[in-house]
């Protein structure tokens, strides 16, 4: 599938490279908390990041930004903090099961993705959240290769979705 090498690269020496394979990643990238010497710089960057991201995307400062794969709607506004699609409780008109007066975040993400031709990115497996990055600057985390870089452009979206499905069919056999 169309995922960058960095996402599945191994960083812990205990694991044999490439095993266990994607998406069973026990080891993708660094899972350590950010070093003490970077904390102050991270806080400064976070100040500017918040100015941009909080009003625009209702950023929850998870430090592991996946906005680019969720059509620029912050998935962390979900009460269950789902990172891989909606839970089973979405109501009739896409209402949230916890707060019925709100709309399900993933319901909005789906329709925005369709509008922006970014459906193929919804197939992306978002790995387990590294909670030690909570409240740190995700811009710095990208620079320091702690998290995957954003995906800006998606070309030939419909074709890509078909490829993803075909790839899976091929690996099955």
């Amino acid at each position: 599938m169309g995922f960058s090498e960095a996402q599945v690269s191994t960083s812990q020496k205990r694991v044999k490279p490439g095993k266990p394979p994607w998406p069973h990643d026990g080891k993708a990238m660094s899972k350590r908390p950010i070093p003490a010497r970077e904390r102050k710089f991270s806080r400064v960057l976070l100040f500017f990041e918040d100015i941009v991201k909080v009003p625009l995307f209702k950023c929850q400062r998870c430090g592991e930004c996946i906005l680019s794969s969720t059509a620029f709607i912050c998935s962390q506004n979900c009460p269950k903090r789902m990172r891989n699609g909606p839970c089973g409780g979405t109501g009739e008109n896409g209402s949230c099961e916890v707060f019925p007066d709100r709309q399900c975040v993933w319901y909005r993400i789906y329709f925005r993705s369709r509008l922006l031709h970014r459906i193929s990115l919804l197939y992306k497996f978002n790995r387990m959240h590294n909670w030690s990055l909570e409240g740190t600057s995700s811009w710095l985390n990208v620079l320091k290769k702690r998290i995957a870089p954003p995906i800006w452009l998606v070309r030939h979206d419909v074709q890509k979705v078909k490829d993803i499905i075909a790839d899976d069919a091929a690996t099955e056999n």
Partner: protein
Amino acid sequence: MTLRQKIESNGFIVCGEITPPQSCDGDVLRARAKYFKGYVDAVNITDNQTAIVRLSSIASARILLDEGIEPIMQMTCRDRNRLAMQSDLLGAAALGIHNVLCLTGDYQTFGDQPEARGVFDLDSIQLITTVATMNNGHLLSGFEMKKAPGFLIGAAANPFAEPLEMRLIRLHKKIVAGAHFIQTQPVFDPEKFARWMERVVDLGLHEKVAILAGVMPVRSAKTLLWMKERVPGMRVRDEYIDRMNHARDPEAEGVAMAVETIQALRATRGVRGIHLMPLNWESITPTILNDAGISVAQ
């Protein structure tokens, strides 16, 4: 025949479901288990369903195992973080439990202790990958285990929620993550279910995973209404409620409805089996399965 063998063969799979009691009384479970023995392939054990504290699913699953029934242990992400989940999974495997159903879990405000803190460290797809990683012989830390647990991984799907395509993407992700079988929400809207199933068959997903459709026998119109209004993600067509309201004998009508649903599902292409959920009405299981003409070869 174990559930794994049944999935690999081409038989029609029947799963039951038992809700553990809100006490430490294991005899309640044993009494309920009696109704399933010899009638189903495996029985789901719910994990603090609707966020209400109940006997733990691991202990319940072990009790069922002692009764000679294959359990499917449900595991939700609401109550545990990734450390507790891995250790519970190892514990379950050591106790001889080999089936696990990975769920995100109902939000804690649906239960009787809404003030509790929900964990939601992982979501259900990430839980599936956790179990798959453990099956591969590794813990999430990368530590290589001496013995891999070898779980059969289940997942849930909701065919009734909108938008349909998002549901299929999620189903697809669950399959890629490593799910072996899928259990759906109870079917009270056969047309919508058929539409979802058609798309699943179009994409060829039914060949990669065994899809078990949910069937829920109900005793009264009140239960149906309660489910429609209170259970998240449930769709109940008004015809069913009307039918129950106008029935002279609601229990018999409930059985008839369940049998009709089972027969319709059996005829649907791509459905590998059913998941029967007699909520607090376990004693009806043999009647329904006999009426529907389903017998599980032991």
